[in-house]
C-alpha cells in the first residue's frame, strides 16, 4: 500500500513568486531612503544618471534604463504559475516561430 500522495499535490509557487505576489509597492519616500546592497546603484549612487528617481513632487516614479537592467538576472521567475502554459497557448512554442520564419 502506497500512502505517498505527494505526486498528486499541485505544484507550489517558488519562494520568489510568493514574494512577488505579497511584496508591497515601495512608496516614494521609501524609495528615496532605501539603501541597496553594495554594487547596486540606487538612490544614493554617486552617479545620478544611474539612479531611480522620484519627482520633486514625490508623486511620480522614473527609472533610468541602467537602474532597471540591474534586475534582469535577479528576478527570473515566471510571473504566475500558469504563465508558461498561457504564453505557449498565445504565442506558441519558440520552435513554431522559428520554423514559420525560416526560409
Amino acid at each position, binding site marked *: 500500500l502506497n500512502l505517498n500522495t505527494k505526486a498528486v499535490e499541485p505544484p507550489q509557487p*517558488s*519562494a*520568489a*513568486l510568493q*514574494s*512577488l505576489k*505579497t*511584496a*508591497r*509597492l*515601495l512608496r516614494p519616500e*521609501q*524609495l528615496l531612503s*532605501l539603501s*541597496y*546592497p553594495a554594487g*547596486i546603484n540606487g538612490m544614493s549612487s554617486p552617479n545620478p544618471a544611474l539612479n*531611480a528617481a522620484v*519627482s520633486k513632487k514625490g508623486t*511620480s*516614479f*522614473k*527609472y*533610468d*534604463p541602467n*537602474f*532597471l*537592467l*540591474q*534586475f*534582469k538576472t*535577479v*528576478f*527570473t*521567475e*515566471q*510571473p*504566475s504559475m500558469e*504563465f*508558461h502554459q*498561457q*504564453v505557449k497557448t*498565445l*504565442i*506558441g512554442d*519558440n520552435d*513554431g*516561430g*522559428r520554423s*514559420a*520564419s525560416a526560409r
Partner: protein
Amino acid sequence: SSTAAADIDSKLVTVFHDKDNFNVKHPLQNKWTLWFTKPSSGKGDNWNDLLKEVITFNSVEEFWGIYNNIAPVSELALKSDYHLFKEGVRPEWEDQQNKHGGKWSYSFKEKRNIDINDIWLHTMLAAIGETLEEDNDGEVMGVVVNVRKAFFRVGVWTRTIGKSIPNRGDGDVAGGKGRPAEKGKQILENIGKRFKEILKLPATEYVEFSGHTDAAHSGSTRAKAKFTV
C-alpha cells in the same frame, strides 16, 4: 516566515537583498499591458481575434519575470507584433484614446545587422521607466514592435499629433486647449529625439512621425509624415 510580520513592517527587503524573500517591490508610474498579435493563418482572420492580451503589471520585478519567460522578438514568427501599452488602452488606432494620435516609428531593413531584442528591450525600459517624456507631457500611450519579412519596425504611439483634441479640457495637457500648438509639437519632437537615441540611429537616419488617421486613410505612412527627427 509568517511569524515575522512585525519585522517585515520595519525592514524593507528588496529583491537585491534577498531574491527569494523580499517584501517590497519597485512600483511603476503606470500599469502596463503586454499584447501579442498572432500571425494571420491566411484568409478570413479577424484582426481582433489575433490581438491577444498577455498580462498587466505594475512593478519592475514583475516586468523582468515576464521578459525572462517570454519569447524574444528574434524568435517570433513573421507578422507577429508585441505591443506594450498603458492599461486600458487597446493597441489599435480605433481606440478612443488613440484615434486622435499618431506614432513615431522606424523600420530596420537590415534585419541581420541589428540586435532587435536589445532594441525592443530598451524601448520597453524607456516606456515603463517613463523616460520617453517629461512628467506632465501626457503623450506616450505605448510602444510596439512589428516582425515582418522585410523589416523590424519599432514605434512609440502618442495621444495627439500636437494639436488639441475633443474632451481634453482647457488645461496645458496633451490635447488640451491650454497647450499651445508650438509646445505640443515641441513635446512630440522631444519624444522622437529620445526614441532615436534609444534606437542608436546615426544622424543620417530619421525617425518619422505620422498621424494614425492619415496612416489609415492613405496606403503609405511615408507620404503623410508630419515630422522627422
